[in-house]
């Protein structure tokens, strides 16, 4: 089973210019292209309808116009030679025309890939109306059965696009019999109203089209991910359900979730599903406390009565059986590297540190050689809690700085930049040689030099491993994406980080602290051995 995982949409501007003369629309496009080239505006698309007009592209010929031009001019219909690719086509009211102004330098410098993306938009647009649009190899456009419904002809100035595509919605398709559309003799043409046998209002079609356009062009190409869902995916899901354990993969709406689950990997989230912090970037449920853990039978009741600490745990929603269940799930999944993280638990005296230790111990009991990575909250900087974590014998202890100092009030309002750095330092002070790890999410509004500053601060706290990934707005309530960082910039951070002395820098759009955690640890482990 294939599907594109693309839950995040940054909206591109859609300008609906209504019914507008072809020449005026082209003039507007040229002005917008100049502005786009100067970076005055971002990517956008014009959505228009044209009064009746025939246009011939660069590969076209007047031989494909089958009627006398004089006859057309009497009717006030022009025939224009234009600078787009392709042959002859026809526009008239009732046809949806879209002119994307997109800087392909910021996506993929590939004109044919762009043509395929436009086809993708049309196919998903038609699908919304229950119509199956198909593309043909070697022939640009979209067909319904044997009839063509959408026409594509584009141009680019340097790598900024103009011209675009047209989709027949409710227009009179009889006019197409006056031409060999796209230069193809006796090509049959259809419209959405005709194939779907329903009236399709233009305002609605424009709305649907815009939304599908945004799904394809709203995020850069490098953030589109194709994932294969296999049987392992469902086995992972079942194991998580059988052992009733939570994962940060699901709670954080991680974009790698399908991929990781399909490789039988999951990162566990302990201490409940409710976090006592309210960070702007995170989609984990927020609240003051977790629901109490139900006690099963009468026997349990007496147990809780006899051991007061257990009862307290139950009321605080700390599930004393969670460590054992996680160990069971780890075994079922056959993990060789386990990542444990948690919600912040400011309502618990040790911040939940002992639960981490218990979980690590349970996992270690079940499988001796497993690599354990703990990704911990700041525990309100309680030293005793950090000691508990260090004593747990974890191979890696991580604490994510998440963002640059300046953005803390917005991104992590109840955390403290210096405190987070201090935690990493304390871990090292308590245990020399302990591998430590941290992560930064970029695209939240930070500047490049601020990212480098944060990397320096992490190194000053003797942090060994670093993850840098693209922030992707996980939900409507979360902070918007300020910027999509290019793969090249991620590459620069990797180089800078390695020069600074990080043992491993995992810097890529989809990098997350637990993504490829096993591989990154191995790199680090080998490097540690070499330097010893």
């Amino acid at each position, binding site marked *: 089973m294939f599907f594109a995982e693309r839950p995040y949409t940054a909206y591109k501007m859609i300008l609906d210019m209504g019914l507008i003369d072809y020449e005026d629309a082209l003039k507007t496009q040229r002005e917008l292209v100049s502005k786009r080239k100067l970076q005055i505006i971002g990517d956008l698309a014009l959505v228009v309808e044209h009064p009746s007009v025939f246009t011939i592209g660069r590969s076209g010929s007047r031989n494909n116009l089958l009627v006398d031009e004089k006859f057309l001019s009497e009717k006030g219909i022009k025939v224009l030679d234009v600078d787009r690719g392709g042959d002859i086509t026809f526009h008239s009211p009732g046809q949806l025309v879209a002119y994307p102004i997109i800087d392909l330098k910021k996506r993929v410098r590939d004109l044919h890939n762009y043509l395929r993306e436009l086809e993708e938009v049309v196919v998903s647009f038609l699908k919304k109306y229950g119509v199956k649009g198909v593309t043909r190899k070697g022939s640009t456009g979209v067909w319904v059965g044997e009839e063509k419904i959408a026409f594509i002809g584009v*141009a680019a100035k340097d790598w900024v696009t103009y011209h675009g595509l047209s989709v027949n919605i409710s227009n009179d398709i009889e006019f197409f019999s006056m031409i060999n559309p796209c230069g193809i003799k006796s090509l049959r043409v259809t419209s959405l109203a005709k194939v779907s046998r329903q009236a399709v209002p233009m305002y609605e079609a424009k709305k649907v089209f815009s939304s599908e356009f945004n799904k394809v062009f709203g995020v850069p190409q490098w953030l589109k991910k194709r994932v294969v869902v296999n049987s392992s995916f469902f086995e992972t899901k079942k194991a998580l359900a059988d052992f009733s354990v939570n994962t940060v993969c699901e709670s954080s709406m991680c974009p790698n979730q399908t991929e990781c689950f399909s490789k039988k990997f999951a990162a566990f989230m302990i201490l409940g599903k409710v976090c006592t912090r309210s960070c702007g970037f995170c989609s984990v449920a927020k609240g003051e406390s977790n629901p109490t853990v139900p006690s099963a039978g009468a026997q349990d009741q007496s147990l809780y009565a006899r051991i007061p600490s257990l009862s307290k745990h139950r009321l605080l929603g700390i599930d004393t059986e969670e460590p054992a269940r996680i160990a069971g799930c780890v075994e079922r999944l056959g993990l060789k590297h386990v990542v444990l993280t948690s919600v912040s638990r400011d309502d618990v005296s040790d911040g939940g540190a002992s639960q981490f230790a218990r979980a690590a111990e349970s996992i270690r009991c079940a499988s001796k050689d497993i690599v354990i990575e703990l990704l911990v909250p700041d525990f309100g900087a309680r030293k005793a809690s950090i000691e508990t974590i260090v004593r747990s014998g974890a191979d890696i202890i991580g604490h994510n700085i998440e963002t640059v100092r300046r953005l803390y009030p917005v991104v992590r309002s109840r955390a403290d930049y210096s405190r987070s750095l201090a935690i990493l330092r304390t871990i090292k002070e308590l245990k020399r040689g302990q591998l430590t790890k941290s992560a930064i999410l970029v695209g939240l509004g930070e500047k490049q030099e601020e990212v480098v500053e944060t990397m320096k601060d992490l190194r000053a706290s003797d942090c060994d491993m670093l993850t840098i990934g693209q922030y992707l707005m996980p939900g409507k309530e979360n902070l918007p994406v300020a910027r999509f960082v290019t793969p090249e910039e991620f590459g620069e951070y990797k180089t800078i980080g390695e020069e600074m002395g990080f043992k491993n820098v995992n810097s890529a759009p989809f990098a997350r602290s637990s993504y490829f955690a096993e591989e990154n640890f191995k790199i680090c482990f080998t490097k540690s051995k070499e330097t010893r």
Partner: protein
Amino acid sequence: MTNVTLPLLAEGVDKASISYWHKQVGETVKEGENLVELVTDKATFNMPSPVSGTVKEVLVSEGGAAKVGETIAIIE
């Protein structure tokens, strides 16, 4: 003297046609100004001049095709 070569317009597409020379031999052109229009499938590509100068030679005429990397004009 600068050789203007045909850029790669799409992955796996090793040639393109020249559809329009914005500048003719003897004309001056500024860096970044449209020099030539190329066509591949249903797309045209207006290629800016890589340098300022005078068009010394046009090696592929309108309607002709060139391979990626092939010199299509010389600017001095």
